[in-house]
């Protein structure tokens, strides 16, 4: 047995070696840190590679001595143990040399860190708020603000549809930023601690409720850069990606124009009635984006935290309660108020969809309140009413 082991080891080494060759044949970004598109990310990458190679060289050195000793001084080859066991000069030497190497590493690291601590004036300031489980972006000077949700359809999460290229890394509304301008990110959170991480920008900043922290970027080329929440923030921590769309300053200006114009233009005609089929179709899409992560596409939810909608009292009872629930949420639970996020039309569509999906419109079973069609006007009036009620 004993003599077989060297052979065994060499085989294993061969196996591992060939595996590393295969893996290095992958695109670089799959096994290493991306070089990124900001001065910060370049600095970080350079630093990372430098430390990596220093570690590799120390490793090669130490491991060679170790491997040499293990082969050379085997008892089975008749090695006789030497008697030395102390040498103060040697000890001090191999404490001092690593210390010097560390100093050599600390100097560039300190420089980079000081460069990162940049307080120059910014061209664009964006406030980022982490929510369970989505991001909100507010452009301070432009007055634009919106939520950014995961847009991967739940059918893909549940393996009922083939997964597309950016599975779990796609959102309904990306963060749009200009290139070549200094963007200042102000990061905070609404509930628990999140962390806004986009590797290509070299930014990871914890979003902490009650506290504001900042980071910055000056992006060099246009493109789409993706990232994820990096701090465990609850059930759907893995489902709140970040997509940054870097565009030219001109395109950015145009985008801002479009966003602000959209806001001041006349509100969509809420008086226009929609057909049930239209509402259902629109509702299904919206349900998938905003509701399905917790309540599940099958409406089964994840009780007890996220109740089922299938056959639920709210979704089959009076329409009014159902709309109120979506508008105002349920305090003290994960069910939040959607009135800031969704338009009357959207809520109308979602409620209509929920009242028909999964057999919720089965009137013989659930009573005559079940089913029904909700129009935007009804939501609008209830929205106004609820505000009014509270005021009195």
């Amino acid at each position: 047995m004993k003599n077989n082991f060297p052979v065994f080891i060499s085989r294993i080494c061969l196996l591992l070696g060939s595996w590393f060759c295969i893996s290095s044949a992958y695109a670089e970004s799959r096994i290493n840190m991306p070089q990124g598109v900001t001065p910060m990310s370049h600095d970080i990458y350079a630093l990372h590679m430098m430390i990596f190679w220093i570690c590799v060289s120390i490793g090669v050195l130490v491991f060679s001595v170790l491997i040499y000793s293990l082969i050379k001084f085997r008892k089975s080859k008749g090695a006789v143990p030497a008697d030395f066991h102390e040498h103060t000069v040697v000890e001090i030497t191999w404490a001092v040399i690593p210390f010097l190497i560390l100093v050599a590493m600390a100097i560039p690291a300190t420089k980079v860190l000081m460069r990162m601590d940049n307080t120059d004036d910014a061209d664009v300031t964006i406030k980022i708020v982490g929510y369970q489980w989505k991001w909100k972006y507010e452009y301070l000077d432009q007055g634009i603000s919106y939520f950014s949700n995961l847009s991967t359809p739940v059918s893909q999460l549940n393996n009922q549809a083939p997964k597309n290229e950016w599975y779990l890394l796609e959102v309904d509304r990306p963060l749009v930023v200009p290139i070549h301008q200094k963007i200042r990110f102000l990061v905070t959170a609404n509930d628990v601690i999140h962390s806004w991480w986009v590797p290509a920008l070299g930014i990871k900043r914890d979003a902490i409720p009650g506290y504001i922290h900042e980071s910055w970027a000056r992006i060099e080329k246009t493109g789409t850069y993706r990232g994820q929440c990096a701090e465990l923030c609850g059930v759907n921590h893995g489902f709140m990606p970040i997509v940054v769309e870097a565009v030219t300053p001109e395109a950015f200006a145009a985008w801002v124009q479009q966003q602000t114009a959209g806001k001041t233009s006349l509100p969509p005609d809420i008086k226009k009635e929609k057909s049930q089929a239209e509402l259902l179709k629109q509702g299904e899409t919206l349900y998938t984006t905003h509701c399905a992560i917790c309540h599940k596409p099958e409406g089964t939810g994840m009780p007890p935290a996220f109740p089922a909608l299938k056959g639920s009292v709210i979704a089959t009872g009076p329409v009014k309660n159902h709309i109120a629930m979506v508008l105002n949420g349920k305090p003290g639970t994960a069910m939040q108020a959607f009135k800031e996020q969704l338009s009357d039309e959207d809520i109308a569509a979602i409620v209509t969809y929920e009242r028909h999906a999964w057999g919720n419109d089965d009137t013989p079973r659930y009573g005559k309140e079940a089913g029904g069609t909700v129009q935007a006007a009804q939501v609008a009036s209830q929205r106004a009413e609820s505000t009014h009620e509270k005021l009195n």
Partner: protein
Amino acid sequence: MSTAVNDVHEHEHEHPEGFWGVLGRWLFTTNHKDIGTLYLWLSFIMFFVGGAMALVIRAELFQPGARIVSPEFFNQMTTLHGLIMVFGVVMPAMVGLANWQIPMMIGAPDMALPRLNNWSFWILPFAFSLLMSTFFMSGPAPDFGWTFYAPLSTTYGPKSTDFMIFSIHLMGLSSIMGAINVIATIFNMRAPGMTLMKMPIFVWSWLVTAFLLLGVMPVLAGAVTMMLADRHFGTSFFNAAGGGDPILFQHVFWFFGHPEVYILIMPAFGVISEVVSTFSRKKIFGYRFMIYAIVAIALLSFIVWAHHMFTAGIPLVTELFFMYATMLVAVPTGVKVFNWVATIFKGSISFEAPMLFAIAFLFLFTMGGFSGLMLSIVPADYQYQDTYFVVAHFHYVLIPGSIFAIMAAIYYWLPKWTGHMYNETMAKWHFWLTVISINITFFPMHFLGLAGMPRRIPDYALQFTDFNRIATIGAFIFGFSQLLFLINVVRTVRGHGPRVGAKVWEGAHGLEWTLPSPPPYHSFTVPPEIKN
């Protein structure tokens, strides 16, 4: 493990028989060997429990998409896996080794405070029952990671969090009592002539560990007490609404947490020092410096905690301080590695199972050290923090570090404890399967982290699929290989395998090898004579 203890050599101690007799014996035992055995078996059981959770995690991550468990349950798995592996596996195993070995290595009959010893063990089964009971409660088990950051664990924590808090209180109590016992034993029970600077390195490493435990376990108890108060008594230590600060929680937690990880690795340093010296047939190189290094690491561990929080928005000067302090840890750690290599150099090396694990420790722990050094660099840490790179790093230092050292220790001392040799072939199979699968599991995680995969996610983007698959395969091989270890230990304990003499290993020296195998119930009733 000590059923063998009572079949020979023992005439003065009649062990009671029958179910109640046996139960009573183990329940009320104050013997350091019995208690050591209990600790080790508890650790072994929890190793499989925590390991099963790890396999659930890896099975879910075998491919993208929701597959086996819900994200909710996934989070519970990552949380409990972490808590159990840290508090239920590595710490009890180390305490078990301390119980068995320290009295024998310093020439004492038993531990200094035997009743306290009984208590500190028997608290633990209750602590873990409490922790595991959270799975059977309505509402989720703790699901916020083993670091239980506020406010996710306070304002937003499930009801079961309170059970976790009490469970941690109990574990802390047990550790503190254990630490007091170890220090008292080492200070008061050494045989005449066994000066501090003659003590085996394992004993030294445990002395330092015990002081670390004494210094930080109470702080953890304080942290969870504050959590409890925030949850139920209207205080706001960690809630900004009442003037608190969630970052404060991280400071308090990591003030405990960083020394804690050294608590997990220090005794391992001790074990490796003993094993490397024995199988190189050479005295440990630089005994004094090895001890200085342990003390230096312990002291440094108190001033590096904020390196877990570089992305939490602490200011430049603070980040620089913690970066430099963290980098400094590499110096004494380096000294230790160099000294082990120097011990092997020009030795006369043989490759029994304990030595194989020790050698794997030298290679793989050093690699974990390198990734630790990389993580200490603040700007680079902005990219590494909370990714699989970190997961790879701490599994490299904890499995080939602490766990391999524990396995080395078991193979090394099991023949002493039982009087029987373990099965070397099976042990070699166990070693090779373990060491290969550990690398298959955790090496690809470096790539995953660098390429952008955050930790603690139940599902991932398609680009991460390949490495996750490889990791899962490795994890399953690793998990099932441990059954070989279990079988081997059980066989040896039950008296299979050839009998061994007092000095089991040719190159071993130290007081424990002067005792017969298995050693008498009370190790040294007459203080031994200490030579040189």
